[in-house]
């Protein structure tokens, strides 16, 4: 089990790798598309990377509900383990 802070750091690492987002710009209230400029294909890549890193499954209908970094962190916290 990762802590909330560890999850946020892990998500930030993925965002940097996939989309070139600076880790300092990543915080729970940020929207992936509106604030961090992540396009839909990159969002799919990010979901795959999250699945690999945190051992969670993100079905397509759940991915649509993940709008912000905070949404992703909550989803991972609820489903990891």
């Amino acid at each position, binding site marked *: 089990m990762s802590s909330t802070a560890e999850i946020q750091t892990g998500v930030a690492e993925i965002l940097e790798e*996939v*989309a*070139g987002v600076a880790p300092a710009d990543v915080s729970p209230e940020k929207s992936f598309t509106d604030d961090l400029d992540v396009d839909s*294909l*990159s969002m*799919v*890549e990010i979901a*795959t990377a999250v699945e690999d890193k945190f051992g969670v499954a993100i079905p397509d209908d759940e991915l649509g509900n993940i709008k912000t970094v905070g949404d992703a962190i909550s989803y991972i916290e609820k489903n990891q383990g």
Partner: protein
Amino acid sequence: MSTSTADVVVTGLGATTPLGGDVASTWEALLAGRSGVSRITEDWVKDFPAQLVARLAVDPAEQIDRVRARRLDRSQQVAVIAAEEAWRDAAGANAGVDPERIAVVFGTGIGGALTLLGQDDVLEQKGPKRVSPHTIPMLMPNGPAAAVGLAVGARAGVHAPVSACASGAEAVRWGLDLLRFDRADMVLVGGTEACVHPLPMAGFAAMRAMSTRNDEPSRASRPFDKGRDGFVLAEGAAALVLERADAAKARGAKVYARLAGAGATADGYDLVAPHPEGAGGARAMAAAIKDAGLTAADIGHVNAHATSTPMGDTAEATAIRRTIGDHPLVTATKSQTGHLLGAAGALESVFTILALRDQIVPATANLDDPDDHAAVQELDIVRTEPRRASFSAALNDSFGFGGHNLALVFTTV
């Protein structure tokens, strides 16, 4: 030369090649006689009959942002690098041209083969859910044109001719037509290729099309030489900015040359074998010269397609001699660059233009013992070292599997 609205000129050049990461370094290396060919050292090559390749002199990773690069196939990365150099060279961004009047025509022979094959490995090893969502835009053959179009904000149209090793030249011709038909005011044209991978290598080798002179990499590509035994696969891209002469003049653009004419034909003979006398190539050359309003006597220099295959080179020599004559100074720059497939016609257009500008014809490397074929014997093929000469018109040949023949005529302005 008279100037009319139909006159089309070249105002920007770009390239990344086995000889250099830009036009200037590539041209310098070409004139210096350097070879871009090396022997592959990876394990996979040990059972391959042909083990030579001409890789990029500068890794695209040094020239393009990492995040941008990971969404582009290598063929698209090099297309963007060459196109952006040409666009900067032409000061395209400051030309004041409406994006809806800017077009892109960028060809490739093979397309995103590295992505296709790499993602097939992912599919086999990790399953369908791990295949990248960028797979399709990275492998589609219009991907390089689309990536270049986005890079320069082109909205008049983005086109991707695919005609094997004639694709780059075909793109130049389409650009000429777009300007003549007033469908755009500025066209960024070019060709790209990056498919150094075991599968294309094995496929070309199975056709017996590649040189197996593995122990002498720099001597393997030897167009017109008696000892030639096939081409050397190369990677890279080249780009040109075209616009109408009056518009270029009005904005005070630097003008390299005039793209005076183009000719395109199909062999209608065989899917891959060249016509033994280069009949289709000859018709393309004649059409290009006529289109330029010139006669064969005006053509002072020919940049030959000449890939170093036994059949192709003699067929082309026959076509050049019959169509143009014995007088032009002929060169085969693939002797140093290797064969860039879909980028070849664009890169050799760049070389033809620089030859006109500098009034110098690069040498054909490795032409130690010209073929006994009469046409090869009688052509004036520049060898040993570049030759200075005075000429105002030059022709660039490109031919592709499928029987595609392109000829482009450039003139001084």
